[in-house]
């Protein structure tokens, strides 16, 4: 996060692309659970960032800025996926259900499926915290919310994953920290 870039500089944006693309891809893949869709979403993220590269102010880390854009785009992609699935369901009413794509089935494990079931903000918080190693403050600065909001999102996400994945991953139980922290925290408007 401590890389320095000059706004509007094409070479710096290329360097930012090389440095940030894999990390952004992992984040979006954790949210969407689809590698091709995640790659498409990250490419769109860099397109939007490139359009605003002249106006970017280096008072915040560039990768945090990119993460914010990418997570917003991932949220939009999820909505489109839901709309597409509903449209597909309506389209094949009365017909036998088509077989799922083998590639996507093999790619999507139960762990990724559990992450995908989380709301976008919670899945993003889990990935940024446990994969990228960001602190709650860095996540809050990246997503433009308060640290308390990040704490509540993490707690809620842990509770949901505990339910889906089982206790073998050592996740905190709902009575310990997760659900209580969520209930007492502010309600986060999420999908």
């Amino acid at each position, binding site marked *: 996060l401590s890389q320095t870039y000059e706004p509007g500089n*094409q070479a710096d*944006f*290329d360097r930012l*692309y*090389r440095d940030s*693309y*894999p990390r952004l*891809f*992992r984040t979006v*893949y*954790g949210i969407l659970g689809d*590698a091709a869709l*995640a790659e498409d979403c990250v*490419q*769109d993220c*860099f*397109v939007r*960032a*490139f*359009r605003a590269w002249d106006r970017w102010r280096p008072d915040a880390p560039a990768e945090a800025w990119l993460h914010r854009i990418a997570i917003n785009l991932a949220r939009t992609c999820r909505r489109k996926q839901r709309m597409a699935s509903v449209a597909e369901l309506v389209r094949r009413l009365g017909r036998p259900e088509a077989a799922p794509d083998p590639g996507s089935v093999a*790619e999507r*494990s139960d*762990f*990724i499926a559990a*992450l995908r079931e989380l709301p976008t903000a919670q899945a993003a918080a*889990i*990935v940024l*915290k*446990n*994969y990228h190693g960001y602190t709650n403050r860095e996540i809050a600065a990246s997503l433009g919310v308060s640290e308390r909001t990040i704490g509540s999102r993490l707690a809620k996400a*842990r509770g949901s994953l505990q339910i889906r994945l089982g206790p073998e*991953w*050592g*996740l*905190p139980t709902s009575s310990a920290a997760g659900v209580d922290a969520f209930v007492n925290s502010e309600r986060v408007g999420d999908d």
Partner: protein
Amino acid sequence: MTEAFRRRLKEELEGPKLSSPLPAQARYRNLGGAVRSDSVGLIQLGAAFLVGVLVAVGLISAGTHSANPQVWRVQVAAAFRQLTTTPTATPSPAESASPTASPRGFEIPGIAPTPEESMPGSNPAEGPETPGPTNSEQPEPAPSASSSGGGGEAPEPQSSPESSWNPSPSPASSPEADH
């Protein structure tokens, strides 16, 4: 959150093989090209507009024989006025040709000069001022020629006394008529 969860998360997220990100293959590079082509298109459009303006200025200058925009405006206004007024005066070509051919007709519009009046008139400079001096002055020389015989101003009474005074012949010329 346990270390096992983090390890599993890392394995799952790094499962898909990701090729090395090359900026040359990135989508935003195509956008940059598109933006560049848009700007080039705008520049070309502006250049075409300037060329069009220059051509129009050249044509107007050549048409009005002047490089003064005020002259252009006057010329254009006159041409426009002419275009708008020509339908009301359609027979103007025939009328406009005759005044140019005989400008004297405009000098005396009330009296149309005939060739007989203008040609035998001894003094063309007095013609316009006294349109009919011969007819009005001819009675004067006849009495003066019989009495004094010295008018000098009009020699015509001697040349044609019969043509002008036939209705009233002199008494010396016809004494036998009474008898």
